[in-house]
Structures are given as C-alpha cells and as structure tokens.
C-alpha cells in the first residue's frame, strides 16, 4: 500500500469521496435552481458509489451508479421538466416563512450534534485493515436466494406494484 506522510491511499480516496459527497449534498439543498440541484444530486450519488468501491462493496457500487445515478436521476430530471412553471432560477427556493427555516435549521443542528456526540463517545471495534476484494457478489447471491428469498420476492412484488401504481397515478383517471 502506498503511504505518504501517514495517509494511506485508502484514506486519501475516502477523504476525496467524502468531500465530494458532502459538497454535492449541500448543493442539492442550497442551489436556487432545481436543475442544478438535480445535477448536484447525481454527483452526490457518484460520491457515495466511490465510498462503496472504497469499502470493497463493488457490486453495490455498480448498482448505485446504475440505479441511482442512472435511472432515478433521469426520472427526477424528467419530473422537474414536467412540472416547471416559473423561471429556472427561482424553482428551488427556501421556504419564505423564516420561522420554518429557523425551526428546520435548529432541529437539524441538534440532531447532528447528538449524532456526532454519540459517534464520538462510543467504543468502536479496532479498525480492520481493508484487504483485497471479497467475493461479495457470490455472498449476496447466496443470501438473496437462500435465507432472504422471501424478502427478495416481496421486493419484486413491491417494485411491480409501485411501477403499476406510478403509471396509473401519472396517467390520471379519466372522468366518465
């Protein structure tokens, strides 16, 4: 493993991916143009995919890129284009009620503080060295079609019902 000044390559990759993810996530909630927000969301998804790859979860990283950065972001951008009814620069405004923004910010700050305190005060197992790639695809396949096959089938039914429901909802009901 390449080491430079105590920072291994893994650490450098994590730092870069985490920085991209957090910056892009901030962009999602802070851009005033919702198209920029959506593109920023794609970047955040790719940053999370990089984190997965860095954690040796290659299959999940590929799924993340295919499903999130590919399918879901295209769906979101299509929906944005279908429902735009004002200039693009004013599509993603903060709530005009300052009390709402203040309450939201306070709740978020309190939750983040509590989470950071909980993470900092807990005892975590000693860091295991990230070794070469595990056979995650094989392990996932055995779990998915073995112990968790009922959940797998339920997820399949959920997806089918959700797609049919989405089509019916978006198509609208004809009044007879």
């Amino acid at each position, binding site marked *: 493993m390449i080491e430079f000044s105590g920072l*291994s390559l*893994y*650490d450098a990759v*994590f730092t870069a991916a*985490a920085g991209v*993810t957090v910056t892009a*996530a*901030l962009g*999602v*909630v802070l851009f005033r143009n*919702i198209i920029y*927000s959506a593109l920023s969301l794609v970047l*955040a*998804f790719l940053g999370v995919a990089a*984190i997965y790859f860095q*954690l*040796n*979860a290659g299959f*999940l990283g590929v*799924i993340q890129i295919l*499903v*999130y950065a590919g*399918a*879901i972001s295209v*769906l*979101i951008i299509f*929906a944005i284009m*279908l*429902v735009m009814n004002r200039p693009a620069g004013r599509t993603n*405004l*903060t*709530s005009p009620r300052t009390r*709402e*923004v203040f309450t*939201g*910010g306070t*709740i*978020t700050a309190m*939750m*983040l503080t509590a*989470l950071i305190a909980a*993470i*900092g005060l*807990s005892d*975590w*197992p*000693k*860091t*295991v060295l990230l070794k070469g790639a*595990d056979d*995650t695809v094989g*392990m*996932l396949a055995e*779990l998915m079609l073995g112990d968790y096959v009922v959940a797998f089938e339920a997820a399949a039914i*959920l997806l089918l019902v*959700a797609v049919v429901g*989405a*089509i019916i*909802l*978006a198509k609208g009901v004809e009044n007879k």
Partner: protein
Amino acid sequence: MIGLPHYLLLGAVVFSIGVFGVLTRRNAVAVLMSVELMLNAVNINFVAANKFMAVGTAVGQLFSVFVIVVAAAEIAVGLALVISIYRQRGTVDLHDFNLLKW
C-alpha cells in the same frame, strides 16, 4: 487511519443535510431529492458497519440492496404523485398542497 467512526460521521452529515432539505425546501421534487440523500446516508452506514463489524459476511450489503429497491419504488410513486397534483393545482409548492384539508 480511516475507521468506522469516519464513515458513520459521513453518514450523519449527509443525513442531516437531507433532513434540512426536507424541512426547509418548498418544492416537492426537492423534498423527494432530500429524502434520497437521507436513504443514501443510511446505506453508507449499512455498508460500513458490514465491513468493520461483520467481517466475512454480506448481510449489511444485502440490506442496502433492499433499501435501494424501496427507494426506487418510493421515488417512482412520489414523482407520479407530484405530477398528478401538478396537473390538478398547477403548482409544486408544498404550501399549496392542501388537497386533504377541508
């Protein structure tokens, strides 16, 4: 050396950004995007905990796959609802969504 707490910290920060977005945005699509951010933060935690605390198994990753499935279903139905409401009310501003009030 990067350990489990760093990943959990990243998850906490991304989740908080998502919560902030849900609480303060007024565009319904932006709220859905913030929900996606929160689900991603949860997935980071699952995969990291799997890597550091359940070495040699893939249960955490399996849960992440299921979270992704549910997120895909949620975003599809959510966006369909937004489009349906937009057709009725001509707006996606959450303050104008009061169809269930009488």
